[in-house]
């Protein structure tokens, strides 16, 4: 389903963030991506929805080479992937509600459906009462939950989350993980970059460890693996 063949990514400033990446993730898997700060986790994730293009090698989604997608096909790719960005990437001028509904307006859902889906998902992340607030009026953890809501609202086939619990307290983090597991149970592939040893070691899943831009470990039901 998602496959990388000998992928290398060198940014325009000459930093090689990834190299020699060969990985395959099947539909419905749940994968943790772990590794130290600056290892290349976010870059690894960005390749999948083509925020960045690989410098070398191939990234295949459903056997389509992502790098070769035509300009017009990219929106379609991205609509199939829900992403929680490490820096949230909320639209500052829009309210919480509008931020989440944007993902549905893009696929031209009916206003009625949009309303129901958005309220449901805001309820799920416990932000129903902040629907009319702007991102700047939210706490860090609240913003992160809006980003999560937007990522799952249109029931994507793939869900990618970059450090989705970095600004959340442990209790809330577990609630979010419960949501991710439910989403995964419905058949969605979940790929999650995280620094949370607690989560990785408790909810055992496949673990891909990246260090200095290379995959150094790839275990089913692995653990976080770094000593604290």
């Amino acid at each position, binding site marked *: 389903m998602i496959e990388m063949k000998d992928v290398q990514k060198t940014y325009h400033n000459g930093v090689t963030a990834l190299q020699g990446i060969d990985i395959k993730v099947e539909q419905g898997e749940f994968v943790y991506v772990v590794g130290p700060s600056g290892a290349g986790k976010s870059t690894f994730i960005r390749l999948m929805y083509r925020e960045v293009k690989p410098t070398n090698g191939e990234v295949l989604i*459903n056997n389509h080479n992502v790098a070769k997608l035509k*300009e017009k096909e990219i929106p379609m790719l991205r609509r199939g992937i829900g992403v929680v960005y490490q820096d949230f990437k909320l*639209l500052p001028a829009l309210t919480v509600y509008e931020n989440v509904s944007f993902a549905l307006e893009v696929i031209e859902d009916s206003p009625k459906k949009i309303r129901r889906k958005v309220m449901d998902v805001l309820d799920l992340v416990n932000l129903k009462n902040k629907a009319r607030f702007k991102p700047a009026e939210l706490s860090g953890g609240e913003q992160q939950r809006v980003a999560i809501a937007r990522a799952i609202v249109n029931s994507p086939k793939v869900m990618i989350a970059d450090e989705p619990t970095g600004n959340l307290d442990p209790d809330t983090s577990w609630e979010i993980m419960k949501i991710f597991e439910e989403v995964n149970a419905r058949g969605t592939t979940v790929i999650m970059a995280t620094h949370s040893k607690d989560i990785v070691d408790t909810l055992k899943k496949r673990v891909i460890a990246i260090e200095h831009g290379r995959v150094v470990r790839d275990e089913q039901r692995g653990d976080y693996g770094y000593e604290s």
Partner: protein
Amino acid sequence: MNREVTTVMKARTLKRHLREGSKNILRNGWMTFASVASVTTTLILVGVFLVIMLNLNEMSEKVEEDVQIRAFIDIAANQEDIDALEKEITKLSEISTIEYSSKEEELENLMSSLGADGEAMAMVNQDNPLNAAFIIKTADPMDTFDVAKKIKSFDHVSSVEYGNNVIQKLFTFNEYARYIGIGLIAALVLTAAFLISNTIKITIMARSEEIGIMKLVGATNGFIRWPFFIEGLLMGILGSIVPIILVIGGYYYLYENMKDRTFVPFFELIPFSPFVWQVSLILLGIGAFIGVWGSVMSVRKFLKV
């Protein structure tokens, strides 16, 4: 998953774009205000200029229409010769009117135009030394010189005159002034276009990050562009309201105050209606067009994310 996004838009999506476009006007309050203010200022300038230039143009055309050719007829010419000459002149395609003026009429004319000198000369009336003349007007005053030259070569024409020196100077002067005026208007409209779209470009630049986020969430270029299109249109229209009001109000005031005081003969304003409506429409058109053009062009740059 890799299908292309269909390009046919659902009605509800158009509605969404209209709503978002209008909302953006409010959301980006300060930026919008600054953009609209730019449009307003520029269009006021364009409006004032248009009104002035169009009026000056009208006036100088009127002055020029007064320019007539006076072809003096040889004293030796008999009635037959005169008739033949008239026919010949009338054949010239540039001519609009031709009129015969006898020796006596000519002298009277000269005397009245001379004022004090003329009165002094009244005594020489009996000795009238002047010739009879044809007074000719051309359809396009610009042809005056050519026509005068042609007529001069005709038989029985002793000499040809067109306006006195000052009018002639004024004439050339007007011509230049008009070219300059047209040039200025064109330059001003182009500058306005550039300035407005530049302002809008900057406001959109400030939102380039937002556009990037929209693309990441799966929006097509068209989806992103539409609200900007609406926003640009609205900004252009909003920006042209004040200039239009000023032009209408200002011209009304001016016109009402000037129409009775024709202290300078050719200083007469173009009638209020439909002139102001036409100018208003031009301003609205420039505003709307440039608003749309400025925003759509600027968005394009950021759609290549």
